[in-house]
């Protein structure tokens, strides 16, 4: 049903949410178990099993976080959407980062931000596709992406400071 690449794709998606490798594996495993618990006839009706599993992974993660009550409630969801600056897809092109900075950046963003970043940057979904995944209007997703990019710039400044401090310590 799923080949190695697809399983890795699910794992990376789970990792964008959980940030932890073990947690990501648990999410994939639980999602697959849930899918397999469904009657065969129902599974056969699922048009895009991979996308379906991603939804399960997402729901699992946020359910788990809600139970833990550690889910940060301040996110791009709560931003004021009334004013939208024009979105430039190349706005991040001039920003260059290395892998250490990527890791620090991911650590600074919350799950929803990381998920959106993953879908946009790694899976290269269009705004329309992301809007379809979240079942939200395109405008809302444009706004979220815009604010995410803004937040990445802010966080990267902090990351640079952190990296410099770490370098000085070494």
């Amino acid at each position: 049903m799923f080949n190695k690449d697809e399983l890795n794709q699910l794992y990376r998606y789970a990792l964008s949410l959980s940030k932890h490798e073990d947690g990501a594996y648990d999410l994939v495993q639980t999602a697959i178990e849930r899918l397999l618990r469904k009657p065969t006839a129902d599974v056969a009706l699922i048009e895009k099993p991979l996308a379906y599993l991603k939804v399960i992974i997402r729901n699992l993660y946020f359910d788990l976080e809600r139970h833990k009550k550690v889910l940060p409630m301040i996110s791009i969801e709560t931003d004021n959407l009334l004013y939208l600056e024009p979105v430039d897809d190349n706005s991040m092109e001039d920003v260059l980062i290395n892998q250490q900075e990527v890791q620090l950046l991911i650590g600074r963003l919350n799950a929803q931000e990381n998920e959106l970043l993953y879908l946009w940057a790694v899976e290269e979904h269009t705004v329309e596709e992301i809007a379809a995944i979240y079942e939200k209007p395109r405008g809302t997703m444009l706004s979220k992406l815009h604010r995410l990019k803004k937040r990445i710039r802010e966080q990267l400044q902090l990351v640079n400071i952190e990296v410099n401090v770490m370098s000085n310590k070494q």
Partner: protein
Amino acid sequence: MNNEKQAVKQALKTFYANKSLSGSQLQSLQQKLTSQFTKDDENITNDKKISIIKCLGSIAASFLIVWMLAYLHTPQLISSAYADIQKDKNLNTGLPLAIQQWLDENKITRVPSQYPVEMSKFCTLDQNLTMHMRIAGKQQGMLNVFFYHGERPLFWFNGTGKLDDLNWRLLKVRENLTLIVFYTHDMREKSVLHILNEMLPEIEV
């Protein structure tokens, strides 16, 4: 860790590309998927078996219903014969030649002489031609026998019962001979068996 600076998108792609499931994790997930599909195959086979069993069950149930209807249908034949008995109770034809010939043709021995044949005639029961014979008991009682020669209709089943003052019995004697027997309560069963055994030695009552 690679310290080369890349654009954010590319850097993120590189970061995630380096994250993969370990060999054992992959194996475990694939095993889970494979075992489930094997189970699914078994389930499909089981589902098929269940469908076949259900189908056979339905057929058996249908046959049972038909059989039950048929079983309930038998008394209608008996009622018809009973009505004929009532209709002909005052008829005294004895044993006409035509009936004697019919008995001979069908290899049925004559009634023992101590039991007088009061009436015998051909009659139709439920559109089936039968030979009706009324035989008096030695001292008391009355025996009515309907001989049906030919392939027994589908819904005629061996059975016994009571209808008003008469006991009845339907029994297959030969492949092409069926009897519908009525006898009054005061007729000795031993006499009934004696008469029938004399006429049809192969009979097993």
